[in-house]
């Protein structure tokens, strides 16, 4: 048995337990004239097939750079990248660019926020789609075009035989986003990274697109990494959530952990900042004071310290000097905060009390029994 066969055999044996995507201590540094920007600072997470992981954060939290790093889209001449990204066991950070390129668009694909700037304005939809097929599959132009039409139909574009002759500017925003999704799905990727896929769209179109992603995931068992700042979309789509702030993961957990048992002051701030359609509208919003941090001069201790109203509850100046570790509070739930667990639960109850219980009209759904 050759060495290659052994690894394949091992990989098959591990597949039952190993996550499809595993990111381990990922760091991305951009040296600039003003100093080193640490955009991603020791990020670890994993996603199983058929599951959706949401990465939540504000501008500058490092969520988009994380996704570009996974896809191998970070320019290695201007950035330093360390850590591990394993796609079905295959390490990508140290891999040759050609190797990553052969996976990109085939085993892993990406949907970007702005379809107008991600589609080429000079080429027809059909040309762009069939090229994406012919890069990875040895098929004729006619066959690739036929495959493109089938995919357009599948993402809900009416009369695809006409649409493949259109240019991106002929299509509405929702249709363009569907074309992007169609392009991403052409080679049946096993991992789909969606970076703010619906931010530029109206709510009714957003609902159509999210529905489509959910159906496709059910059909193909795709692993999805969803990057967004919209907590409604996260609640709708995600199985697990990673909350990022200043390039670091500050809280990680199952969907119910993050919404019903949040333990990090930043997560409380996010949940308190969004107006909700389903509660009394006279309730005042509780914004997070201050501004997101500069990634060049990150605070030495906890990154959230300058905006955290609770740092005085921590004895000494630990929040200023000592970087908190991402410590587990339950098997799937981890938090980066110096506050004592009992303190955190008390504050969460006080701040978000009414929202920590599942909504009354959700009786009969899951989530009650693990209270």
């Amino acid at each position, binding site marked *: 048995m050759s060495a290659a066969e052994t690894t394949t055999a091992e990989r098959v044996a591990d597949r039952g337990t190993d996550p499809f995507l595993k990111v381990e201590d990922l760091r991305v540094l951009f040296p600039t004239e003003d100093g080193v920007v640490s955009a991603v600072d020791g990020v670890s997470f994993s996603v199983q097939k058929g599951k959706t992981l949401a990465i939540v954060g504000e501008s500058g939290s490092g969520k988009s750079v994380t996704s570009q790093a996974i896809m191998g889209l970070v320019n290695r001449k201007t950035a330093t990248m360390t850590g591990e990204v394993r796609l079905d066991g295959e390490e990508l950070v140290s891999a040759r660019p050609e190797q990553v390129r052969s996976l990109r668009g085939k085993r892993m694909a990406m949907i970007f926020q702005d379809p107008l700037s991600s589609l080429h304005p000079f080429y027809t939809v059909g040309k762009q789609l069939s090229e994406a097929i012919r890069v990875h599959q040895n098929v004729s132009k006619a066959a690739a075009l036929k495959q493109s039409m089938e995919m357009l139909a599948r993402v809900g574009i009416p009369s695809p035989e006409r649409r493949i002759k259109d240019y991106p500017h002929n299509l509405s925003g929702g249709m363009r986003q569907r074309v992007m999704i169609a392009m991403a799905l052409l080679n049946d990727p096993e991992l789909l990274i969606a970076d703010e896929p619906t931010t530029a769209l109206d709510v*009714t179109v957003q609902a159509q697109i999210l529905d489509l992603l959910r159906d496709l995931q059910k059909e193909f068992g795709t692993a999805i990494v969803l990057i967004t700042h919209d907590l*409604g979309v996260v609640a709708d789509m995600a199985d697990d959530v990673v909350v990022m702030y200043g390039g670091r993961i500050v809280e990680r957990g199952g969907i119910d952990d993050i919404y019903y048992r949040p333990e990090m002051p930043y997560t409380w701030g996010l949940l308190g900042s969004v107006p909700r359609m389903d509660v009394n509208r006279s309730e005042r919003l509780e914004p997070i004071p201050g501004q997101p941090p500069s990634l060049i001069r990150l605070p030495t201790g906890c990154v959230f310290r300058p905006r955290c109203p609770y740092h005085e509850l921590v004895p000494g100046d630990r929040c200023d000097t000592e970087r908190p570790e991402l410590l587990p509070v339950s098997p799937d739930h981890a938090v980066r905060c110096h506050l004592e667990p009992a303190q955190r639960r008390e504050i969460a109850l006080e701040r978000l009390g009414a929202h920590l219980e599942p909504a009354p009209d959700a009786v009969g759904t899951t989530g009650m029994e693990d209270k």
Partner: protein
Amino acid sequence: MTVVDESGTNQVLRREDALLRVDRVQKYFPITGGGVLKRKVGDVRAVEEISFDIVPGETLGIVGESGCGKSTAGRTIMKLLDPTGGKIEFEGRDITELDRRAMVPLRREMQMIFQDPYSALNPRHTVGGIISAPFKVQGVKPARGIQAEVQDLMARVGLNPEHFNRYPNEFSGGQRQRIGIARAIALRPKLIVCDEPVSALDVSIQAQVVNLLEDLQDEFQLAYVFIAHDLSVVRHISDRIAVMYLGRIMEIADAEKIYSSPRHPYTHALTSAVPLPDPNAERARERILLKGDLPSPINPPSGCVFRTRCPKAQQRCADEIPLLRELAPGHYGACHFPEEKHLIPV
């Protein structure tokens, strides 16, 4: 008080103490053909006969998807665009026909806040210069001098008054929006039209700006026209909400009612499409998916403009334009087959 307006068409709420009254306002943009003559070949009907009123201290939200005419409506109310038809009254005075110069004194009373805080501020003027502009344009000389007044305003909106001489590029998006707000409230207006004031901001910053707008409203009895596509934000800040589709108002009612008992199928579809930041509520949420895209405002469908996407559309919807009518006290909808009351238990 409700009256049927003179033409016997749309029913609207008309209140005696209205600060602003918008009566069947239209805004068409002409489409000209090629060639030297620029012959008019059609119209983009951006706003089609919208009517509403606002009383002092009230917030009217205008929601709708891109292309529904909500921003054009805001600019037309402000007289930044000339209405094609209809009447706009401010404090009982007809301002529809006033020209630019005649509008200048009225700008003390009505102001605007824009969506993009990056392009709404002149990059070559200091913050102090930007916020003092209204004083200079209107020839207002505060007793303590303009600078002291502007620094008070800066402090009021949460900016550091010492940053008087800085330029807009030195501020973050949220801070720039605060500069725009300080400029808008400088002369204590009675009405501010806010066009997507928070949609370019991060969630945590969005909440700061929403709270600031609410505080200023309480302090100065401001009336807002709050235009946005984010239903959760609009519902949070508004007293009443108008839902627009393809240039027309489909439904107008109290903010609470628009969500809890939408009567127009479009409002119902729109509110049901908003994901809730609560996983259990999400699992239980009933969704109405709309098919297709927005029709073109150049050639809108006959009858009800929403009928091409409406799950309840019938022959009558193609033949007859539905008029706004009072379906419940203070609740107006333009639909031949309105939804039943109390769809969503509150």
